C-alpha cells in the first residue's frame, strides 16, 4: 500500500511537471512579444521607444533572459511557492488567485454537488419507470444536457429566472442566491453525463439474479434499486467526479463571463489574451494539481467503496 501510494504520488508530480512545461512552451511560442503587449496595455507602442529604453523595460519585466533560463528560473520559484508577479496587473499572482479562489470554489463545489444530485436522481427515477415509451424518452433526455452550449443556456437562464420571473439575481458574487444560476448552468452537462452512465448502470443491476431475490424478500422496486443500484453506481460516479475537475475549470471560463463573476476562470481567459504568462501558468498548474489530487483521492477511496478492490502492486 505504501509503495503504491509513493508511486502514485510520483506519477502525480510527473503529470504536474508535464502540464506546467507544455503550458509554458505553448505560451512562449505565442506570436506576440510579451513586452509589446504589456507596453501596449499601458497605452504605449513599442516602436516609439529607443532600443535602450526597450532593453530597460525588458529587464524590468524579467524578459531579458533566454527561453530556457526563464523556464528554469520560473520553475524554481514555483517549487518554492513563489508564483511571481502578474505582468499586466502589477500584483503578486498568489494574491490575485487567492482573491478569486473562494468565488470559483463555491461555484464549482455547488456545481459538483448539484450535478451528482441531479444526475443520480434523474437516473434513479428514469430506471424505475417501466412504461416503455416514457422510459425511452427519459433514457435519451440526458444527451440533450450536453447538446447545448453552456454559455447559451446561462444567458437563457438569466432571461428567464432573473429578468422574466425575477426569482434570482442575474449577476454578481454576493450571497448564495447569486450562486444558484451559474452553478446550475455549470452542473447541467456533468449531471447529464452522470445520468446517462447511471441509467445504464441501474439497467445492468436489474439483469442480476440477486435482484429477483431482493424483490422476493419483499423489497419494493425502488428499495431494491436503491440498495443495489447505488452501490454499483458509486464507483462510476466517483470516477466521473474526479474527471469533472478539468471540465469545471473549462466551464467556469464561460460561466463566469456570462454571469459577470470574477473568479479563476475569468482571470484565466483574460490572462491568456494578455499573455500574462505567470498568471496563466499558475492557474494551469493549480487546476492540474486539483485534477491530480482529486483523482488520487478518488483512487484511494475505491477500496473503501468496494472491498474487492485492493491496491496491489501492479501486475501489468
Amino acid at each position: 500500500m505504501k509503495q503504491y501510494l509513493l508511486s502514485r504520488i510520483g506519477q502525480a508530480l510527473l503529470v504536474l511537471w508535464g502540464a506546467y512545461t507544455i503550458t509554458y512552451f505553448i505560451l512562449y511560442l505565442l506570436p506576440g512579444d510579451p513586452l509589446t503587449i504589456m507596453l501596449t496595455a499601458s497605452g504605449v507602442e513599442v516602436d516609439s521607444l529607443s532600443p535602450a529604453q526597450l532593453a530597460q523595460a525588458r529587464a524590468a519585466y524579467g524578459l531579458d533572459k533566454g527561453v530556457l533560463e526563464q523556464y528554469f528560473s520560473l520553475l524554481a520559484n514555483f517549487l518554492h511557492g513563489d508564483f511571481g508577479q502578474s505582468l499586466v496587473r502589477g500584483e503578486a499572482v498568489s494574491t490575485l488567485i487567492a482573491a478569486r479562489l473562494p468565488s470559483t470554489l463555491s461555484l464549482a463545489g455547488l456545481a459538483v454537488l448539484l450535478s451528482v444530485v441531479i444526475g443520480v436522481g434523474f437516473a434513479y427515477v428514469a430506471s424505475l419507470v417501466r412504461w416503455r415509451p416514457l422510459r425511452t424518452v427519459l433514457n435519451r433526455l440526458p444527451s440533450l444536457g450536453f447538446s447545448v452550449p453552456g454559455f447559451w443556456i446561462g444567458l437563457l437562464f438569466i432571461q428567464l429566472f432573473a429578468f422574466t420571473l425575477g426569482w434570482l439575481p442575474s449577476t454578481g458574487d454576493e450571497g448564495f442566491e447569486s450562486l444558484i444560476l451559474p452553478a446550475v448552468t455549470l452542473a447541467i452537462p456533468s449531471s447529464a453525463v452522470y445520468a446517462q452512465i447511471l441509467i445504464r448502470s441501474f439497467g445492468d443491476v436489474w439483469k442480476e439474479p440477486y435482484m429477483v431475490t431482493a424483490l422476493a424478500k419483499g423489497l419494493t422496486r425502488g428499495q431494491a434499486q436503491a440498495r443495489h443500484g447505488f452501490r454499483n453506481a458509486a464507483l462510476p460516479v466517483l470516477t466521473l467526479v474526479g474527471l469533472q475537475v478539468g471540465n469545471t475549470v473549462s466551464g467556469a471560463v464561460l460561466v463566469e463571463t456570462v454571469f459577470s463573476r470574477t473568479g479563476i476562470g475569468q482571470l484565466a481567459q483574460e490572462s491568456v489574451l494578455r499573455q500574462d504568462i505567470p498568471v496563466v501558468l499558475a492557474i494551469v498548474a493549480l487546476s492540474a494539481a486539483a485534477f491530480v489530487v482529486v483523482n488520487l483521492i478518488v483512487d484511494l477511496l475505491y477500496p473503501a467503496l468496494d472491498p474487492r478492490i485492493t491496491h496491489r502492486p501492479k501486475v501489468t
Partner: protein
Amino acid sequence: MRKAIRAFHVPMSAVLTSVAALLLLSCSKQPEADNGTLKVAFGKDNTAFVSLDPFQVWWIEHRIVLRNVAESLTDQDPATGAIIPWLAKSWEISPDGLEYTFTLRDDVTFSNGSKFDASAVKTAFDADKALVEKLPTVFGATYLSGYDHADILDDHRIRLVLARPNGGFLQATSTTNLAILAPESYARSPEERSRGAIIGTGPFTLERYTPEVGLTLVKRKGYGWPSRVVKNPGEAKVERIEVSYIAEDTVRNGKFLQGSVDIIWPRAPFPDADLNLLKQGGATIESRSLPGPSLNLFPNTRNGRTLSDPVVRQAVQKAIDRPSYARTVYNPDFPVVEGPFDKTTPYFRSQKAKLVYDPAGAERLLDGAGWKKGTDGFRSKDGKRLVLRINSQTDTPGNVLLQDQLRKVGIDVQIVVLVPGEYAAAIKAGKYDLTGSYMTRGDPVILQTILDPRYSRGSALATNAFTPDLLKKAQHLFDAGLITSDPAKRAEAYGALQDLLIDQSIAFPVYERIWQAALSKNVKGFAWTAEGFASFNDLEIKR
C-alpha cells in the same frame, strides 16, 4: 453488502458537509437597500492596465469616477469649451506662453484633512514629471508636455514654468489627468496609486476599488468648492455610489430594467432596439459626443500599399455611407459624423459637404485609375485585386457593414480580428490598410498623440498614415496650433488641419463618438463635463 453501503455513505456525507461549508462561506452579507445609494453599471473593466491613478489612466470610465474624487486647477465649460476657474481662482499666461501663474482658492482641503495650497500643487506636478522621466510612455505625458518646474510665489500663488510652448497646457490643467492629489498620495508608489490610493479634493472619496468587480464612492462631508458649471455648490446629494462592471449587454440592460441599477453607461452607444426597450422601461437617455477625434480609420500609405494612391483613398471616402451607418448600427436619431473630430471638440470645422455618400463617384474614380470590375464584382488592376485589410480587435457589426458598403463599389475589405498582442505587432509591421484609433480630450492637440510621429506613442500608425510630403504639411499645422494659446490662431491652424485630413483622405471618419448613459426615472440632476464625463455632485435619487 451492508458494509459496502456504509462505506459509500462515509465519503458521500463528507462531500456533502464540505460543500455545505463552502456554501455557507459564500453566503456572505447581502447588500441592504439604501435610498442614498446610487448604482451605476459600466461595461467591462479595463483588464489590460489596472490603474486608477489619474495621471496614468486613459480608460474613460475611470476618468468619470476620478472626476468626482480628484479635482483640477481649472475646469472646462461643457457648453463653450472655455477654461474656467476651479481650484485656481484666476491665472495669467506670459506672452511667450511659457509661464502660467495660478492664484489658488484658500478654502480647499483634501479628504485626508491636509491643506490644498501651492506646495501641494508643486508636489503634484513634480511627481507627474518624475513619473514621465521614469516611464516616458505614461499616458499623462502629453498633457504635461513642456512642463519644467514650479515656483511657489506664496501659499496660494504658484507659477508653472514650461520649457517649450504647449498650446494645450491650459486645457490640460482642467483634465482629470492633471488632477491634484494630496501629497500623501504622491508619497506612495505609482502602483499603489493605481490600485486606489487616491486622495483628492472632490465631492466623493474612493472607498474601495476591486478591479473587474466594481468600486464604491462615498460622499465627502463638508465639500463646497465645485466650479461654476456645477449647480450644487455644497455636499453631494447621494450618500454612496456603487459602480459595477458588467460585460454582457443583455445582462446590464436587464438589471437596469429590473431596477437593480440606476444608471447604465456602456462604452458603445445603444443600438435602437435596446434604446426602445430602455425608453419603454422609463429610462432617460443622456448623450454627448466625446471631444477629440471621431471614430476614424487611418490608412497605411507607405511601402506601396494600395492606399498610397490618393485616388483609391478618395474612392473609399466616397464609398462610405455614413448616414446609413449611423442609422443601422446605432439608431435613426444618431448624428452623422462630420469630420475627423467630434463636434464637441474646440475648433471643430465641419467637413460635411466633402463626406457625402457617392458610390457612383467612387466607381468613376476607380474605373479612371484602371481598377476594373471582374465577374465576381471585385476590382483588380494588373492582376492585383483591390483588397483592403482592416485590423480589428473585435468582430463588430459596424465593420461588417463597412465591408459590405465598400463591396458595392468593388473593394474587397478583409477584416482581420487579432488579439491585443498580435494587433500591436501587426500595426507595427505595417500589415494593414486601415485601422481605427481614438482618444478623448477636450482639445484638438490630442490628435497629435495619434497622428504626429513626434508625439504619438503609436508612431507606426502615425507614420504610415501620411505620405512624406503630406506629413510635412500636417506637422506644420500641428505646430501652428501648439505654439500659441491665441484662440483665433489655433482655430485657423486646426481648421486647416481638418481640411487637409479630409481633402487628402488621411482620415476616414466613420461615426461620431457619442457616449450614452441610460438613467432610471428615479435619477435627476445628471450633468456632462466638457470631456464627456459626469459630475455626480448634482445627482439625486428619489425612490
